[in-house]
């Protein structure tokens, strides 16, 4: 009952973005993938959520292969990818953005209750329910993007740089919320981050990616104290 990625290789044309990457995230754990610009983090997530086809390798979630499947099918199966860049539909209202995953849910009652639970987690969204998502602040948009994933009843949450472009205080809030979601909803989380320090603080495990390759896998605690990681990614 885990996410198992084995020997995964992904190319963009002639560029190898992800090269023989292997790692495992046990159910209910929060793993963070850290690495510099261009390390291949986004590409890795996009392969896991079905947005791009990998060249080779395998990835399974709860023993089922998740590669080369349409993203909408994976989303319906509980694998939710929150893309980078505050991924909301600017032209739609907050409510409409949040409603997208309810459109295919059969059980309308539980869809409604998951909407309510998002408003509990992010009360700010409730206040802006009829506002166009394009008019939200960066932090609110990130909340909306994560909120939309929650409405879809995630089991595996793939988050791409939720801290991008946000003030430190907001980043702290978002990360605390992610931690809370992990424990309260028993989610498995893969958190891609440049903000290695903050990410490792809430993570159980850390995976360090460099130029498409895994260069370190360890408990988040150990990585936080690892001198080499500190020097390269934590900036002191």
């Amino acid at each position, binding site marked *: 009952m885990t996410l198992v990625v084995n020997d995964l290789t992904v190319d963009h044309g002639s560029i190898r973005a992800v090269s023989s990457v292997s790692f495992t995230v046990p159910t209910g754990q929060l793993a963070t993938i850290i690495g510099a610009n261009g390390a291949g983090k986004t590409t890795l997530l996009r392969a896991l959520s079905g*947005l791009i086809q990998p060249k080779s390798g395998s990835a399974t979630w709860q023993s089922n292969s998740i590669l080369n499947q349409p993203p*909408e099918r994976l989303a319906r199966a509980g694998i939710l990818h929150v*893309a980078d860049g505050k991924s909301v539909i*600017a032209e739609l209202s907050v409510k409409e953005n949040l409603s*997208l995953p309810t*459109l295919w849910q059969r059980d309308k009652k539980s869809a409604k209750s998951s909407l309510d639970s998002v408003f509990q987690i992010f009360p700010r969204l409730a206040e802006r329910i009829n506002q*166009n*998502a*394009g008019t939200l602040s960066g932090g609110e948009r990130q909340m909306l993007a994560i909120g939309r994933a929650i409405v879809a009843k995630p089991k595996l949450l793939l988050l791409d740089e939720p801290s991008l472009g946000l003030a430190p205080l907001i980043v702290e809030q978002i990360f605390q919320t992610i931690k809370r979601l992990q424990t309260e909803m028993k989610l498995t989380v893969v958190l891609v981050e440049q903000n290695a320090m903050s990410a490792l603080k809430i993570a159980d495990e850390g995976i360090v990616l460099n130029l498409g390759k895994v260069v370190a896998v360890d408990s988040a605690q150990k990585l936080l104290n690892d001198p080499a990681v500190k020097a390269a990614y934590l900036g002191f």
Partner: protein
Amino acid sequence: MKLFDTFLTGLSTGSIYSLMSIALVLVWRSTRVINFAQAGQAVLSTYVGYEIIVRTNSFWFGLIAAMIAGAAIGALIDFFFMRALFKRVKSGPIVLVAPVVATLGLLGIIQAITGFIWGLDNKSITPPVTTGGFTIGDRTLPFGPLNLLIVVAVTVSLLILAIIFQRTNIGLSLRASAFSPEISKLSGIKVDAIRTFGWALSGAAGGLAGILFVSNSALNPNAMDVLLVFGFVSAVIGGLDSLIGAVAGGFVLGMAINFAVAYIDTQMIFPTTFLILILVLLLKPSGLFSRSKGRRD
């Protein structure tokens, strides 16, 4: 009085342009394809409607048949043709060119087929109401029961479309898939299926536009070519992406053409059309009715 008369004819012409414009915008905003084949789809749908009218003697059955045929043809084109095309053509300049070539090719094929089946001569559709104008006192208006029927039919279908888009789940799926296919997919929406539905809606609008258009003129394989041009210019006036803009653009163009014809010369139809197109492209390329999407940073 001339002013009022021209306004009325503008209303009736404009409503048909609106429909064609909507048909083009529906496809453009979900696929980024200017669907030249729509002129073929609409004409084929209209022939289907024509056959039903001949057989049942009912204009209304014909109208419904044309819309159903239009929806089916639209869905089939997307399902068997556009999907396959976009599976192969994904990036590079060819992405811009391929759909143009493909839909132009389809247009040629469909027109050849209709010509083969029905011949090139003009067929006429008998409208359900008289084509003459209403009379006020001793004056006959250039606007009669048929024009009224056209305006009402278009208004009703626009209202239905608006309800579908703003009030239903499938409408939200259509909007979301058009604005961001990727986010929609990641939210579990079957964007491909929704897109096919969009093509069906577009086809139905085209079929309706077609049968209303020829109820006032004549049906032949090329009957919709000019309508496609007017629909396209209307769509550009409206900003290509907006359904409300498409409707408004249709009426603006319908009015402009009728006024130019009434007050300047009957030769003014195409010069007016392209003058407006060029003015819009020069002065407000995003369309007269484009709204801003909110803050950008």
